[in-house]
């Protein structure tokens, strides 16, 4: 029977090829537009470390000015970063399964062999950085507690940096010159592109991770310049980098791994106690406001999903709605225009259900073709967007979940567009049509 319905659908669609193309094209365009914007939106709002969301916490405390809050639009929010001394003190003393204090710096790498030196972005971090954030290694490992304590000159390279410096081979044990000093390579990362870059959202939500990673203690020992945000509120003499280390300027990120609610509670209590102690030294003039954010909460606080992509998402759904309305109208007119044929089939014994199913097959065929077309258009749209997004092209990769979403959208749009017309046509009274034949 369904073969017969398919043949009927084919005949019906062939009768008015322009209208058929218009219907398929309209839904395909709507699906294409929504798939494109949905992919970008989905990529932007995805938590790249969702499986550890509940155990990771961004640590914040409010050391800002008594006169004004850090964020004047949201005065209840503590600053997003920490001072050097707080980051070090909390990382050393707070009760956590793992904890990482870190910041960014930039160094000049000398590839040797007559190649010109180039600038690298480096993350100075304590050793828990790698296990806490599930950072994958291709070769070697991170550093140990001793390297953290003594500031040993060891380095972990990103996959790209290893490619650039050592042609991608296992470079563990090799020596790299950075700012005129020698560092021993102890690890090389596998491909690692957390999108968005949740662990430091201060300079571009979709930046790639740093080029290389160094023990945190080196930053203070060698007085490495800050390369990320440095935010200051207090009038104090900052004659050089040394003053920055003792200042109230914030330029460090701090994350803790807390595995149970009890651990979270204990950590929070310790943090509150620490701030209370510091108050006695005349610091922390604002109301005590020490907050731990899960990754999800952290992404929300930083408003990672761009405003533009939310507007585009809404616009593309409005566009899809127009396309569906359009197709409802076209199908309705087409079905009712051919009501005579249905009336004859009804008079010859076809039930309402059969008429309904027959038209639904036609609608389904349109929906399926439109879905395929929509996917193709979506892929095309993403390719065009890639040009527009420049370096952020990871945002525009169509993944399986998005392909499934596009198919689901096409089916939904097809059903929405086809149900009412199919229902209307099966309610037609045959007698009225038969009389005039």
């Amino acid at each position, binding site marked *: 029977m369904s073969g017969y319905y398919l043949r009927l659908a084919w005949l019906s669609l062939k009768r008015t090829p322009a209208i058929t193309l218009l219907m398929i094209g309209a839904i395909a365009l709507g699906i294409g537009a929504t798939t494109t914007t949905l992919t970008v939106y989905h990529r932007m709002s995805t938590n790249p470390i969702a499986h550890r969301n509940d155990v990771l916490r961004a640590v914040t405390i409010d050391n800002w000015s008594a006169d004004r809050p850090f964020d004047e639009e949201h005065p209840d929010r503590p600053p997003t970063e920490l001072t050097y001394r707080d980051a070090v003190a909390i990382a050393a003393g707070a009760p956590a399964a793992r904890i990482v204090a870190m910041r960014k710096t930039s160094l000049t790498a000398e590839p040797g062999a007559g190649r010109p030196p180039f600038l690298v972005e480096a993350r100075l971090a304590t050793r828990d950085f790698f296990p806490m954030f599930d950072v994958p290694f291709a070769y070697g490992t991170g550093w140990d507690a001793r390297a953290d304590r003594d500031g040993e000159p060891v380095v972990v390279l990103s996959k790209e940096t290893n490619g650039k410096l050592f042609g991608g081979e296992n470079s563990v044990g090799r020596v790299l010159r950075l700012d005129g000093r020698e560092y021993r390579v102890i690890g090389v990362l596998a491909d690692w592109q957390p999108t968005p870059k949740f662990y430091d959202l201060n300079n571009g939500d979709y930046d790639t991770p740093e080029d290389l990673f160094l023990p945190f203690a080196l930053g203070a020992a060698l007085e490495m310049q800050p390369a990320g945000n440095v935010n200051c509120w207090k009038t104090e003499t900052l004659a050089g980098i040394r003053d920055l280390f003792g200042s109230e300027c914030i330029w460090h990120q701090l994350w803790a791994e807390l595995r149970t609610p009890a651990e979270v509670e204990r950590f929070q209590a310790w943090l509150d106690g620490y701030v209370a102690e510091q108050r006695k030294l005349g610091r922390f003039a604002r109301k005590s406001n020490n907050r731990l954010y899960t990754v999800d909460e952290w992404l929300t606080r930083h408003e990672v999903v761009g405003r533009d992509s939310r507007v585009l998402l809404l616009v593309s759904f*409005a566009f899809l*709605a127009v396309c569906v309305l*359009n197709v409802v109208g076209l199908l309705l*007119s087409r079905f009712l225009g051919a009501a005579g044929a249905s009336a004859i089939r009804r008079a010859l014994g076809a039930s309402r259900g059969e008429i309904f199913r027959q038209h639904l097959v036609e609608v389904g065929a349109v929906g399926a073709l439109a879905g395929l077309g929509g996917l193709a258009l979506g892929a095309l749209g993403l390719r065009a967007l890639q040009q527009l997004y420049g370096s952020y092209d990871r945002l525009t990769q169509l993944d399986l979940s998005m392909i499934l979403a596009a198919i689901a959208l096409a089916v939904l749009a097809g059903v929405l567009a086809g149900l009412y017309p199919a229902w209307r046509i099966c309610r037609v009274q045959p007698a009225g049509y038969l009389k005039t034949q």
Partner: protein
Amino acid sequence: MEIRPILSALLRNRTGALLVGLQVAITLAVIANAFFIIERRLETIRRPTGIDTPNLIFAESEGYTPDYQQAATLNDDLALLKGVPGVVAVTVTNSVPLSGGGSANGYQTTADPKAAPIGGNYFEVNADFIDAFGLRLVAGRSFRPEEFVPVPANNDLPPVVIITESMAKALFAGEPALGRRVYEQSGKSAEIIGIVADLQGSWLGNTRPGPSDIVFHPNGGLGRSWVYVVRTRPGERDRLVPEIEKLLNGSGHGRAIIWVRTHEYWLTRTFRADRRMVVFLSTLVILMTAVTALGIVGLATFHVNSRRKQIGTRRALGARRSDIVRYFLIENAMLGGAGVVVGTLLAYAGSSWLTRAFQMPPLPPGYVLASAGALLLLGQLAVLWPARRAGAIDPAVATRTI
């Protein structure tokens, strides 16, 4: 005249009418807001930079060896760059305008540490910066070479500064600023020796400091990393980029040339999001309008086909072709009109969401009016072809099947 019969015919085919009306309504709501967003983005992209953008090259130098000589490197580089044929002027800066990275400080008009400071984007430059950026001196004078003093502390003011007209307005609210002093919260102060016409600062569209609230300090090139500003003669820029890169890289000094780029490079990067929004929204607007128009054509065609007998009868009873065409035009205008009314409400609902969620200013009525007019006109054009086909129906059709 014929509105009543058209209306009652429409009411009998409510679904079809509703569908077209809704399409027009949603399309109107989207395109009115989209045009407004596009217009604002284009305004941002096209706002003058205030500097000689087409002829500017920037180059970052970073010293990294332990025996690195800051002053010698700076002086040698400046002399080297000035000597290149095709170069008009050279200065040094800590930040590239509109690059997204720069420095800001609080400035005030009294030494009172309790005064509320005004945010100012500061550039650390040397005496040649007005020529090198291509700025216009409005009052006073530029720095003199002897005023170039190393003040290494990043919150200590040098003895003299030059500010933009916007900054002068922000600090002194219209009173003359030349010769006055600006203070830091620490109490240190500087004399304002010159005022330059506005340029856009380090960041795009920030509100505090305002986009052109800028202070120039005569202490560029301290520390170990800075940016050269090279202004070329018109047409020489692209040739000079690789030449300058080669020259600087070949001059030794134990430092790395991080990049050599035109100002256009930074503008492209900075405006990428705005440009993307313009392209994407325009595409959606065009597609949406096209789909709506084609939908109108398709539906009208069906209506014409299903009313052939009725139209033939009217023609047989004396209606002229133009009466039939007019019937469809008026029908479309009524549908479009209803859609426009609903669409206006939807447009303002959308605009109020944009205002609440993204602090967009409210939608000016002009955008709704223009979009509505355009959609109504488009509807008339779309229906014209099926309507003319209806007008061409032979009166004999009426007699055939009776």
